[in-house]
């Protein structure tokens, strides 16, 4: 039997292979994200802005809505035809299932965020040239936390009849610290010319660490066959 890391890699590779075949999740979440960007960008008139509060908020709205769709779809794949019961019946820890699903969600979310950001840059000339590395670091840290929370609660709501609506209701408030902190960090970097703020990065990293541990432990309880 392979160890937990091998099992996580095996499950995540399976998820990505299924996604490559079905092309259901990535296409949907990316199109949703682009639509949000276009609608909000045109509505609020953010042409030529640096990623200050307005532009960053628009990106976050796109990430949030696309992310919830992504988490739902990747968990729905497991519910289809009882595949999840097949995984739960296998001799693996449920934390392994969580970690693999998180990796899958994170990979899809990162691809989605790159596409959405590029669309924002091209269509609305969001200027990231002042601190592209800082923007990438903040986005990555935020995505880890967001995907962690989303993966955990997608498992919770997938066994519930409410599903879609409930996931957004649960995830959005919990991710508020991520949205506020990353928006402040990016505003500081791009509008005020500040260096990447250490306390802010610490908050993002702490959020990620806390929810990673909590989710790993809680997954055993929340995942129902």
């Amino acid at each position, binding site marked *: *039997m392979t160890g937990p890391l091998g099992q996580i890699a095996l499950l995540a590779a399976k998820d990505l292979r299924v996604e490559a*075949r079905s092309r259901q999740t990535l296409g949907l979440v990316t199109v949703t994200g682009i639509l949000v960007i276009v609608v909000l960008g045109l509505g609020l008139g953010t042409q030529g802005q640096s990623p200050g509060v307005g532009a960053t908020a628009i990106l976050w709205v796109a990430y949030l809505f696309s992310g919830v769709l992504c988490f739902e779809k990747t968990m729905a794949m497991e519910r289809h*035809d009882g595949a999840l*019961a*097949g*995984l739960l*019946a296998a*001799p693996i820890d449920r934390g392994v299932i969580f970690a693999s699903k998180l990796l899958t969600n994170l990979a899809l979310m990162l691809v989605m965020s790159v596409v959405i950001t590029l669309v924002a840059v091209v269509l609305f000339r969001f200027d990231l040239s002042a601190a592209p590395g800082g923007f990438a670091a903040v986005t990555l840290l935020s995505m880890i936390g967001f995907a962690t929370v989303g993966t955990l609660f997608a498992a919770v709501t997938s066994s519930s009849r409410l599903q879609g609506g409930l996931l957004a209701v649960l995830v959005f408030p919990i991710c508020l610290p991520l949205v506020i902190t990353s928006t402040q960090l990016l505003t500081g970097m791009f509008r005020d010319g500040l260096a990447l703020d250490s306390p802010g990065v610490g908050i993002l990293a702490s959020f990620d660490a806390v929810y990673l541990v909590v989710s790993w432990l809680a997954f055993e309880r929340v995942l129902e*066959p």
Partner: protein
Amino acid sequence: MTGLKETEPVTAAATRLEAPPAMDVARRVASVVAAAGVCLTLDDRHILQDIELEVPAGGTVALLGANGAGKSTLLKVLATLLRPSAGRLRLFGGDVGPHAAKLRSRIGLISHQPMLYRDLSVLENLVFFGRLYGVPGPRERAEALLEHVGMAHRADDAVKTLSRGLTQRAAIARALMHDPDLLLADEPFDGLDAGSAAALEALLTRLRAGGKTLILSNHDIRQALALTDRTVVLRRGRVVLDRPSRELTPDAVLKEIVGP
């Protein structure tokens, strides 16, 4: 495509499958399942009450009952997917609690749902589950099993392209990938046409003859009695009958299922 028809019985030419080296049959112990006073309560509903069930190695048990009697739930408990609220469950001589993950490597689960990924091919599904269970040579094992269940000609087809009968055969191959000592089958005949049902019946008969421990939940009483050597009837989560199948008639079983 070899021209095999979907309704064709499982090929008799399929030879006895060699168990992977790591899956030695010597692991078998006298009592595969030993449930004592097992209860399960969900949302204040008593789904299972005081279940007493002992199944020896190589035993075949029919689990019968009306809809909602607790058959599927009991099978989920035996598969360690659900934890009993009370009572003691031992599998292969060991308590389930701390060793659930390890014990699962010796259990195969078949349901009316295939538990397969519909966008992957049959072979990819089997190899994936084989690797998950640590089966040595998963590809070779998968190919042999697909031959065994008469599905070698559809190995590279996506599961979503298969009929219900073929999907169920693929699901059985998945459940047998790790050569489990205990096979739990939850209404595996559900939705199958006559040909596919006959093929599945033949396969289960051969597994029984091969000494697999089998617990089968089924709605067809006559078929269940023929396939097993013991019958357990559940009514409202309780065992109300536990007798050798050969001593029972379908009418007698039906009376117990319906109750007073």
